[in-house]
């Protein structure tokens, strides 16, 4: 094993080591040593990722096995790493955000009795996520995929005495399992058709399988690639919370804020985006699958943005915003602009983690109050939190030169160039959502930081900036939220950074065309000039203006609008009724069917009729026969006479 390979191993194992030590012995070693062990584990992992990043940029990629998990038939199932430009970028994002969140947690969870447990979980999460992104095969991908789901489950339910938290974590796990159901079937089809789960081997053979069909229903031959890709995408819909499997993400806000930033904004929920980008050699072979991806992404982008506008809980605004932004990334995947999707994944990881952690900082200052209607005017008390939030908000709204502008504009432009069915809708959705994004973001900022303070006097007197362990991560995340866009757009999107890690077939390749324009129109400044002249930028400004007008200027208007819009407002408040429907139809339906099968199938028919029925028939029969043995001589004598008569009759007749 070379030194570099040892380093690859170190990346996931360092956080795992931290998780195990803190998880098993945290109780004995105490709080400070515990957080040091966990933080050092992640820091080592981050440092190793940086070194590997440099090495990969120098052209050294790796694809190899660590150990054989299992062999069966002719197949070897391995655990192994694929280190290329895509995975190393994810490793950087994951370890960096994770490190920030680890530091932040020292402040945020300071008074929590489950301090060590929390550190153990987030380190375990980091390990799982790294296993997911570093995998070189579908099996390990699935392992990481489910393991991050497990940690998400544990962390949403971290405060396990809260009824809402333990409802939310069960819901999150089960909805994710619905996605994983499709994902596992997709993996099964890959194994069956390709005979291996190794990425490289599958991708190499994919083009020759492009015209294969499969009959799931007799007489309907469907493209094999479409079926595989759509099944895999069902997994992504669960993990990346795409419509209609998005329902778990808003409820996941029941977890402590650091994990909302780490898991439910920056990393885990982007696993689906990463996975589809990783599978680009397969998705490129199916226009149907790409169309499905694009339409689902478009629906999520637009309809979740609407919901963010009516939320009053600060974390829920950001949660719905995350759904909408994940929709953008999904749309990018559908438009074959995988690089743009990953680019937005990266910038979003920075500014959304920033926004969540800033919201957490506000929540600490507000003594765990999350209702924005009880905030206001906080900028005076918490200048660092305010400024960093503003940077995050500008980035999210897509205002140049902040990071979100570049990644979002690239997606919108790429979708505009797509010719697949559904691209018109996706374009419309992504452009309209720009207005909504700016509106809800600045609504949140105005309600929280500006205007009159609406909290009670006691809270107001205790308002102050959070300790440095809390604001330092905000600052460190604000930096890339400012520069990551203009600094990385050229290499990531147009400079062939990803090389062979992402495959795009020529007839889909919008980014090439955009790259040519980019080069022709003066590079970065040209891109900005072009963006500022285009509709989305003005929509974003309009959104900010509207937010200012409604929540700063005419603060009486929102209530009136809500009143006037009646049904529409109710529908938005009820989140389109998905929760009620799922509870009634799926959860309730399964229980009703289960109850029916149990009472009718098992208790009444099998046990009641067959098992106990047989016993009863035998019992009844023996009672009948028992009567013959009455023990009375004259009964037997009478029976004998009858018998004798019958026999005599028989003999006489014959």
């Amino acid at each position, binding site marked *: 094993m070379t030194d570099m390979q040892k380093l690859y191993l170190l990346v996931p194992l360092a956080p795992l080591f931290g998780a195990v030590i803190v998880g098993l012995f945290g109780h004995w070693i105490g709080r400070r040593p515990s957080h040091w062990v966990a933080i050092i584990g992640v820091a080592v992992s981050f440092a190793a990722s940086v070194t590997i990043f440099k090495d990969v940029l120098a052209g050294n990629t790796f694809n190899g096995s660590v150990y054989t998990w299992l062999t069966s038939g002719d197949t070897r199932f391995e655990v192994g790493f694929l280190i290329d430009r895509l995975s190393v970028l994810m490793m950087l994002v994951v370890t960096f955000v994770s490190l920030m969140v680890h530091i932040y947690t020292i402040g945020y969870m300071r008074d929590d009795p489950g301090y060590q447990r929390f550190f153990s979980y987030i380190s375990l999460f980091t390990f799982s996520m790294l296993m997911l992104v570093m995998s070189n095969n579908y099996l390990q991908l699935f392992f990481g995929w489910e393991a991050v789901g497990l940690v998400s489950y544990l962390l949403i339910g971290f405060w396990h005495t809260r009824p809402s938290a333990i409802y939310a974590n069960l819901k999150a796990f089960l909805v994710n*399992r619905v996605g994983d159901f499709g994902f596992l079937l997709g993996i099964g089809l890959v194994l069956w058709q390709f005979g291996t789960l190794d990425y490289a081997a599958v991708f190499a053979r994919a083009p020759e399988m492009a015209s294969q069909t499969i009959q799931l229903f007799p007489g309907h031959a469907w493209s094999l690639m479409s079926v595989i890709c759509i099944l895999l995408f069902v997994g992504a819909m669960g993990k990346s919370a795409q419509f209609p499997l998005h329902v778990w993400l808003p409820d996941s806000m029941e977890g402590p804020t650091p994990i909302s930033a780490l898991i439910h904004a920056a990393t885990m929920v982007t696993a689906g985006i990463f996975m589809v980008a990783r599978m680009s050699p397969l998705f490129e072979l199916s226009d149907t699958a790409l169309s499905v991806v694009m339409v689902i992404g478009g629906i999520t982008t637009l309809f979740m943005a609407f919901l963010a506008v009516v939320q009053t809980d600060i974390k829920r605004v950001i949660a719905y915003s995350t759904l909408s932004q994940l929709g953008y990334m999904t749309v990018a995947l559908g438009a074959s602009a995988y690089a743009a999707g990953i680019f937005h994944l990266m910038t979003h990881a920075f500014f959304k983690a920033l926004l969540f952690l800033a919201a957490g900082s506000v929540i600490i200052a507000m003594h765990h109050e999350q209702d924005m209607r009880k905030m206001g005017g906080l900028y005076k008390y918490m200048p660092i939190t305010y400024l960093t939030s503003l940077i995050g908000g500008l980035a999210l709204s897509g205002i140049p030169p902040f990071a979100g502008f570049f990644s979002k504009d690239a997606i919108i432009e790429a979708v505009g160039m797509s010719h697949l069915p559904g691209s018109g809708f996706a374009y419309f959705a992504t452009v309209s959502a720009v207005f909504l994004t700016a509106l809800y973001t600045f609504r949140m900022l105005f309600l929280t930081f500006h205007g009159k303070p609406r909290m009670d006097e006691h809270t107001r007197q205790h308002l102050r900036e959070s300790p440095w362990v809390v604001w330092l991560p905000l600052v460190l995340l604000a930096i890339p939220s400012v520069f990551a866009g203009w600094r990385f757009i050229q290499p990531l999107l147009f400079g062939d950074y990803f090389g062979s890690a992402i495959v795009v077939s020529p007839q889909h390749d919008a980014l090439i065309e955009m790259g040519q324009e980019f080069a022709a129109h003066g590079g970065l400044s040209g891109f900005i000039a072009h963006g500022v002249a285009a509709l989305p930028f003005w929509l974003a400004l309009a959104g900010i203006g509207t937010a200012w007008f409604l929540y700063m200027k005419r603060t009486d208007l929102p209530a009136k609008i809500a009143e006037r819009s009646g049904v529409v407002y109710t529908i938005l408040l009820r989140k389109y009724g998905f929760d009620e429907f799922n509870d009634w139809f799926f959860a309730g339906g399964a229980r009703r069917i289960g109850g029916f099968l149990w009472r009718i199938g098992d208790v009444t028919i099998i046990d009641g009729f067959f098992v106990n029925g047989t016993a009863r028939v035998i019992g009844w029969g023996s009672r009948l026969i028992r009567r013959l043995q009455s023990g009375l001589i004259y009964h037997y004598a009478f029976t004998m006479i009858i018998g004798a008569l019958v026999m005599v009759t028989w003999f006489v007749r014959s």
Partner: protein
Amino acid sequence: MSLGIPQLSLVIWVPILAGVAVLFTGSDRNAALARWLALLGALAGFLVAIPLYTGFDTLNPGMQFTEMHPWIETFNINYHLGVDGLSVLFILLTSFTTVLVVLAGWRVIEKKVAQYMAAFLIMSGVMNGVFASLDAILFYVFWEAMLIPMFIAIGVWGGPNRVYAAVKFFLYTLLGSLLMLVAFIYLYHVSGGSFEILDYQKMPIPMVPQVLIFLAFFTAFAVKVPMWPVHTWLPDAHVEAPTGGSVVLAAIMLKLGAYGFLRFSLPIVPDASHMLSGFMITLSLIAVVYIGLVALVQGDMKKLIAYSSISHMGFVTLGIFLFNAYGMEGALVQMLSHGFVSGALFLCVGVMYDRVHSRQIADYGGVANRMPMFAAFFMLFAMANSGLPGTSGFVGEFMVVMGAIKSNFWYAFFAATTLVFGAAYTLWMYKRVVFGKVANQHVEQLSDIGLREFVILALLAVAVLAMGIYPLPFTEVMHASVNGLLNHVAQSKLY
């Protein structure tokens, strides 16, 4: 190979003789002695089983550690023992589980301690005998003999409705086995006077008798597994059985049915097995889906885990009748894993039952507040039961789904629903029992697990994780025999 030491006889007779010795300690005045003696016997039983793994030749598809002595020469019945890759791991599982069962009953069982311990030790030896028998009559004797200690365990140390449950268990399984005996006698007749299972496997048999033999075996093994719709004895037996009884029942006794299919049905009547595979797969999938839904609505934890067992065993029978390597090895892995996981879950319920004396989910809530260490173990086993990767529960289910999709996409589709249902019933139960605020006075007074309970659960936790993270050492043992069986089954025995 075996250095002349009769390894298999040791794993059978060491626990049985230990059990008899424990019986001699007599009344409960000597309970402590009985416990220690039983632990010693169980450990000795496990120790003598270890060479079976370390000395096992993984490249040999045939029988190993064989022993052969005439028993009843008039009928050509022999004391013929041997193990292959299909059976050897189950002997280890049985011996391992027995140690846990003895420990689990250490303080809980206060009445007739010697008899309780003896019953489980004897049962362990007898079950090892079932896995090791190569003579049909010897197999049958062990098969029926194991019913007796279990019948006693449920009937004496069981819950309030124990007699109904014990009789139901006994009659259900006994009736099933009788037809198997008829099949053996028929095979003895047509084979020209042999009770050798290996002879039956080589013997050509026409289609009609093949189907009849298959059905006779089916009644015996399907009841044992249990397959839908002959499963209703299991929830009752589990609910009434003492913790140790539930553990043995779930961890090992159910596996015997599945093992029967592998050892008898498939190799002896391969053509009938192929012909009826659609039927078997259908029943298996009904078990997975139907029972999964039934498990969801159970209010009694033991009943819930019992139904969960049936659903998981559906994966085993599904895997066996797919006739491919993924399916069959997946089935074997699932059997082992289910031995660990269901055993662990029943022990977890036992831990709570010992303190609160209720199995009803509604009587709990917020257990994690008082028993955090226990809650962590229970979480691990609940996740293993939900088939989380990294635990043993995933490996078998994954392989069976991979095998199923090769046969028919829809088999895999219905099998994979367990991802949702399995998680739903397990975690919903976990939520109601362990999470939440402290629900009542009983939960308030709970104390966390002690050293003895910790050791039991930790051993199982290590097994569950080891098998999930690195299953290769388990499957390596199976390969040669599974390939041998698959090749054998692929050839028609019609003439």
